Structure formats: C-alpha cells, structure tokens
C-alpha cells in the first residue's frame, strides 16, 4: 500500500508502457466514432478493434464520463458527445480542400513517381488547383489556371460524373455545340453525347477512370473523384505519366495501393458537404 507522504515517483518503465497502451486503446475507441452517423455498441466495437468487451466497456465509460461520448437515442449504444465541441484551436475547421489533399498528393507521388494533380469544379469547368510534377519526361500542367469545360478532356468528365443526371443533361445542353473547343482540347475532339455518358457510367461503376491521351507524346492517366456523402464532387485527384513508364499494367498493379492511400481522404470527404456547383442557366 502506498504511503500518503511518499513522494510521487515515475512508474517503472514496463508499467508506464502498459498504461500508455491503455490510453491508446481509449483513444482508439474514440477514433472509431469518426464518420457520418457513427453509433456503436460494445460488442461491435470490440470486434472492430480486435479487443475484449470488458476493455471497450471501460473505455466507453471513461469517454462518456468525460463527455466526449454520450448514450445514443436507443439508450444502449454510444454516439459522439457535445464536449467534442470544446476542443478547438487545432487546424482550421473550414474544409480547405487543397490543404487537406496535399499530403495525399505527396504520398501518391512517392508511390508512383508520376505527376499528380488536384482539380475542382468552378462553375461549368474544371480548374487544377494543386499539382506535383514528376521529374524527367513527365505529364506537365500546361494549362495552369485554365478553366476546362466539364465535357472536354477525360479528366474533366470524372468531375462531371459526380453531378446529378438532370444537372449533367442541362450542362451538356448548354454546352452545345460540343465540338466548340475541339481545337483547344484535341484529346476529346469530335466527342459524342454517347461517349461522354459512357465515361460517366464508367466513373460511377468503377469509382475511378483510366484513360490515355494519344495526342503528341502519349500519356496515361487515372483519376479518382473525392466526393461527399451524397456523391457530390469535392475534387478530383489525377495521376498521369508517359505511357512507356505508366503502362496499363503498372496502373493496375498500383491501383490497390493508390486506393489505400486515398481511402482516409475519401472518408474525410464524406464528412463534409461539397460546395454546391453553380451552373449558369442554359440560354432559353
């Protein structure tokens, strides 16, 4: 038994490590509540975290007593508690898509060593807002700051695919004649409505789009939309490289790792509603 007058000592290293593990388990339980509409019970949390129910129960009690979790409406399970709101002053709360995506662009560059681009929808166009260019022969961002119509280039179409069908139809109607920009964007010259809708279906089915640009120096690309919980577009992450290096086989081989890198970003995207896309009205 510890004497009341004994000076406080640091615990032996083993005990300290054990305590730190206990703290980390509590924090892991709290982190399990990241995501839209997270309501969890003891059993499912224990299963998800690979730990025993007793430990999860104790963690939930600590976190509930501290106000970071609260009982859910069913009285059985748990949800985030209002006291989370006390924790302010970290990184800016505003959803800065460029700052948020930057580390993921860097990771994708480290994985592929090819150029990586971040684009967003601005009105009826795609605009690249950040990029990392690979070294040597590479895909470059030759159109810095240029607004590319959402049906021109396959890259733009990945963003177009995230809009609703009536919205896309209205956009395409307003964009006629579709060959207006063919001289500027030869990649998708002489495109038909069917081709555009086929790309849209592909993005929606696969969750990404791969394509080649046969113009001039041949290059290959893969684009991943970052969407909110309703599927609306936050941004597009594209990786592109010269075809002799960034082959279809290499893209396919890297795909699982690209998806693994992007998954936390996609999760965060689902937490925040995308900025509404404001389209000019079609001429009457």
């Amino acid at each position, binding site marked *: 038994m510890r004497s009341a007058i004994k000076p406080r000592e*640091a615990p032996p290293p083993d005990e300290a490590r054990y305590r730190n593990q206990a703290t980390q388990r509590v924090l892991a339980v709290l982190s399990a509540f990241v995501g839209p509409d997270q309501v969890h019970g003891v059993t499912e949390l224990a299963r998800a975290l690979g730990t025993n129910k007793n430990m999860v129960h104790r963690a939930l009690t600590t976190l509930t007593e501290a106000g970071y979790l609260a009982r859910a409406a069913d009285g059985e399970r748990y*949800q*985030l508690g209002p006291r989370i709101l*006390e924790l302010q*002053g*970290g990184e800016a*709360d505003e959803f800065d898509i460029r700052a948020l995506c930057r580390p993921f662009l860097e990771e994708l560059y480290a994985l592929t060593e090819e150029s990586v681009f971040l684009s967003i929808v601005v009105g009826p166009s795609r605009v690249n807002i950040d990029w990392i260019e690979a070294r040597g022969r590479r895909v470059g961002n030759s159109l810095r700051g240029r607004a590319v119509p959402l049906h021109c280039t396959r890259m733009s179409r990945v963003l177009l695919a995230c809009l609703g069908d009536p919205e896309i139809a209205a956009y395409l109607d307003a964009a006629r004649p579709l060959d207006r920009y063919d001289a500027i964007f030869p990649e998708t010259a002489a495109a038909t409505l069917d081709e555009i809708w086929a790309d849209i279906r592909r993005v929606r089915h696969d969750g990404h789009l791969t394509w080649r640009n046969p113009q001039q120096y041949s290059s290959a690309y893969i684009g991943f939309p970052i969407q909110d919980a309703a599927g609306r577009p936050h941004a597009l992450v594209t990786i592109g490289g010269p075809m002799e290096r960034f082959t279809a086989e290499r893209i396919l081989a890297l795909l699982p790792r690209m998806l693994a890198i992007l998954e936390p970003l996609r999760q965060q995207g*689902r937490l925040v509603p995308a900025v509404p896309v404001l389209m000019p009205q079609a001429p009457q």
Partner: protein
Amino acid sequence: MSSSARRALTILETVGAAERPQGVTEIARALDLAPGTVFRGLDALERAGYVGRYQASSRYVLGGAVNRLRRSLFARFHIREICLPYLQQLAFASGETVSLSVPVGWYAVRIAAAPGLNEVTSSPPLGEVRSLAEGAAARAMLAFYPAAQVKRFRGWARTRRRGLPAELERELRAIRERGYALEATSFAAGRAAVALPVRGPERAVAAIAIEGPVLDLKHRGGHADLPRWIRIVEEIDALVRARSTLFANPFDHLDPDAIVINAPG
C-alpha cells in the same frame, strides 16, 4: 478505467484550451503533474493523431484526429446538407457570410457557413458555441421555443452562473413579433446583422444568420431584399414541416441541463 487515460484527456483539453502551442513543462505546471507523466500522455495522444507538434517544435497543438471528430459531429446534423445551397443563395444575394446554427442542449453551435463576397471577413470559427441567450442566431432560436423551455433555460443559466441580459424577455418578444433577430455590429453604426429562425413543429430547429451589417436600422424594413431572404428561409421551414425526421437533432434525447460545454471565449 486507467487514470492514465483520464489524464491524457485532461492534457488534450489543456492543449485545446491554450491560446498558443504548449510545451511539456507548461502543461505539467498547469496540471500539477510530473513532466514525465505529461510526456507519456502527449506521446499516446500524438500517436493517435490527437495532438501534433507545432511547426516541428517541441510544443503541441491539437491534431487532425480532433478535427475529424468535430466534423463527424457536425455531419450528424443532416440539416446542414439541406441548408447549404440556401446559405449559398443568401450569401450571393446579400454579399455577406451566411451561417447555420443549431441548438445543442442550451447552447447554439455554428455548424456551417457560406462565405460572402467581401475580401475581408471576420467570421467566427465553425463549432463556435454560445449560450441560447448570446447573439442573434441563438436568440432567434430561443424566441421560438415554448415558454416552458425558455423558463427552464433561465433556470439552467442561473445555476451555471451565466448572466442573462435584463431585457431578454422583451427582446425575445420583439423577435417573435418581427420574425427575426437583430445584432448590432461594432464597425457599422446604425446597421445590424440579422438572424432568421428555422421553425420545426414544436420549436426552432436552427437559425440562419446573415452575419454582415445588412440592415439599415434607420429605414423601415431595414433592407429592400429582406422579404426575399425571409422567403428563402421559409422554404426550409416548409421542408422541416414536410420531412421533420431529416431535421432530427442528434442531441435532443439528452437532458439539456446535463450538457455542459466550456467553450473558450
């Protein structure tokens, strides 16, 4: 539960409440703990992403995991998704930043905003917490609470020692008559920002605030476009009446008296 976990949460709160990045010694002094204990707590918090080093220094700030939890909490209010296009519409129409606040217990929390057209803005952060008596957005909601709940709120404010303005009742009555709340701005004399309640079947479920000094208090009606802005918010009212489950507040099942948020500031 291990006291080390509780201690780590206290360290997290200390880092969160501090006005500048905190070092181990500062935290140890503030909490009367051994520096080694604080260091271990910070180590666990840093591993889980709850704190991070400020510009690669030995001082700490809150980490990305905290922000993800805050966003997850905001994401539980589906009213946010529904209102966002309306907020944008109002921001375009008024030129000012327009925000959405919801009640959490006896507090109002600012959970979404659409930026206005001004180059210089002075908006409070998302997640700003004020009592239901503070600020136009909060009062716009409180004014459309049943009298019994307003009375209960007053009791809560008394026990929490949160001062209530003497003229609160009179002001709530004025808001009910007018249909919206006003807030004077310090940098534009004679003008006021405006907050409009989003009304559910029993009480206000949110408030939408046009945060700039849009209303001219010397002129009747305040602004020629005010009726149009009111109509935009009335569209949301109609949605609430038609589909109230979409607007469910994820904290309404909790006892409001038991919700305590010690917001900074």
